[in-house]
């Protein structure tokens, strides 16, 4: 099957991007190079095409009740035009997907989901909706352009009359960007300040080009999925399919803060409550290498001569210049400062447990 193309596919080709297939989509992995793009986002600003992400709307008089059932987070806490990171679980507590819920109105939610999970998520939502709310897959209607980095607000403010400084982190507003109606959200996956712009698919190129033109003075660069991955890992964000999946629960993944048992039952609440009482057997931790070597997905983690876990994401941190990873270990090995080792090509390279994020932007 031919991979999907985003509305910006031709733009990427003309920028000389190297394309890869990701989650069923042809996406840019890098334009000039992962490191340069990574550093540009940390130092100035970068522009991302995230149109492969899915957007599913849940609306109508029963939307609130449906969302309370689907997500582990208390929906009542999400104010109108606020954004909330959350997960959907299976009955056994395993994770269906991690999402951002944008509450657009009292009974209208836009759920941004991972590209590869779009069909699964929609099916899962429909199964639990049981016809109560309007469930609409709007993924093809929306393109998603992200502008991330310390210069993001300065650039974007030249393209909109809206006061961007009034939008706090994890809040959004409906406005116009370069004359295009846009859901402007102060969200991102990089650890930097920035915005995600949900725009009509057919107007995506206009918004992209406008950001590029206005950003030229700030040396804005297009950023591919390669740097998106290193940026999110430095910031300690999880990647579905690597760090979380159907065999991990939010409690194991360190997402307890998202799980609000007090809001009533949701899919998976019984299993998670039981797990909270019984205790978890594995826990997601940050790992920083103390010797030379790059931890990678699937490498084993050792405590003394015991294999205790496995790396789920790893890279060489472009900002820190050392190997960093996320991985699961037993709670007995999960305290910050615990010495561990990662097996890299049959050698045991010393490492230590640290609390993510690995890199924090200066305020």
């Amino acid at each position, binding site marked *: 099957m031919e991979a999907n193309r985003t509305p910006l596919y031709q733009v990427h080709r003309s920028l000389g991007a190297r394309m890869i297939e990701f989650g069923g989509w042809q996406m840019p992995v890098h334009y000039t190079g992962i490191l340069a793009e990574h550093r540009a986002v940390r130092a100035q600003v970068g522009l991302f095409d995230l149109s492969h992400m899915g957007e599913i709307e849940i609306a109508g008089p029963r939307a609130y009740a449906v969302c309370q059932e689907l997500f582990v987070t208390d929906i009542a806490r999400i104010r109108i035009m606020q954004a909330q990171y959350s997960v959907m679980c299976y009955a056994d507590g395993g994770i269906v997907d991690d999402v951002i819920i944008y509450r657009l109105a009292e009974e209208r939610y836009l759920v941004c989901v991972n590209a590869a999970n779009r069909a699964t998520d929609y099916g899962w939502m429909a199964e639990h909706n049981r016809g109560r709310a309007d469930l609409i897959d709007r993924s093809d209607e929306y393109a998603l352009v992200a502008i991330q980095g310390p210069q993001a607000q300065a650039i974007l403010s030249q393209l909109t009359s809206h006061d961007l400084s009034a939008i706090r982190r994890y809040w959004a507003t409906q406005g116009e960007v370069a004359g295009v109606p846009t859901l402007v959200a102060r969200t991102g996956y990089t650890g930097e300040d920035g915005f995600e712009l949900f725009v009509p698919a057919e107007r995506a190129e206009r918004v992209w080009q406008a950001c590029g033109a206005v950003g030229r003075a700030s040396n804005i660069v297009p950023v591919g999925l390669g740097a998106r991955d*290193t940026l999110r890992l430095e910031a300690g964000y999880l990647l579905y399919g690597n760090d979380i999946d159907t065999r991990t629960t939010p409690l194991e993944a360190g997402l307890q803060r998202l799980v609000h048992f007090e809001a009533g039952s949701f899919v998976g609440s019984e299993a998670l409550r039981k797990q909270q009482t019984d205790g978890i057997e594995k826990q997601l931790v940050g790992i920083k290498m103390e010797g030379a070597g790059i931890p990678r997905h699937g490498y084993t983690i050792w405590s003394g001569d015991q294999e205790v876990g496995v790396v789920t994401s790893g890279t060489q941190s472009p900002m820190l210049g050392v190997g960093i990873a996320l991985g699961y270990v037993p709670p007995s090995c999960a305290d910050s400062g615990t010495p561990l080792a990662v097996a890299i090509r049959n050698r045991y390279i010393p490492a230590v447990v640290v609390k993510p994020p690995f890199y924090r932007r200066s305020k």
Partner: protein
Amino acid sequence: MEAPKELRYSQEHEWVLVEEENLATIGITDYAQDQLGDVVFVELPEPDAQLTQDEPFGVVESVKAVSDIYAPVSGTVKEVNTELLNTPETINEDPYGDAWLVQVEMNDPEELDALMTAEEYERFVEEEQEDADE
């Protein structure tokens, strides 16, 4: 893509330069570094290590991927470019120059006959790219 005429090339994208009779300098090609992207880590053998043609003898890692480096010829490692351990990005910047990996005393110079000329290598890469585009 650049492929200097004086070198010989392997299908695994290593180059060999023979200046003295039995002494071969080995590196990875411009095409290889371009495919890898930003190189951030290199693992090389110690002096006196024995290399066997077509067997892995080291590792280069880019941000995204781990790749074995295969020996284009068999022999004994005489010199190792330890500078690369601290500046792996040299492999992207100067793959045919400062980023040589090791110098090897060859066991059997006739092994060179199995390698490609620059022209053959360029054609080989073109075919590989066409396959990738399909």
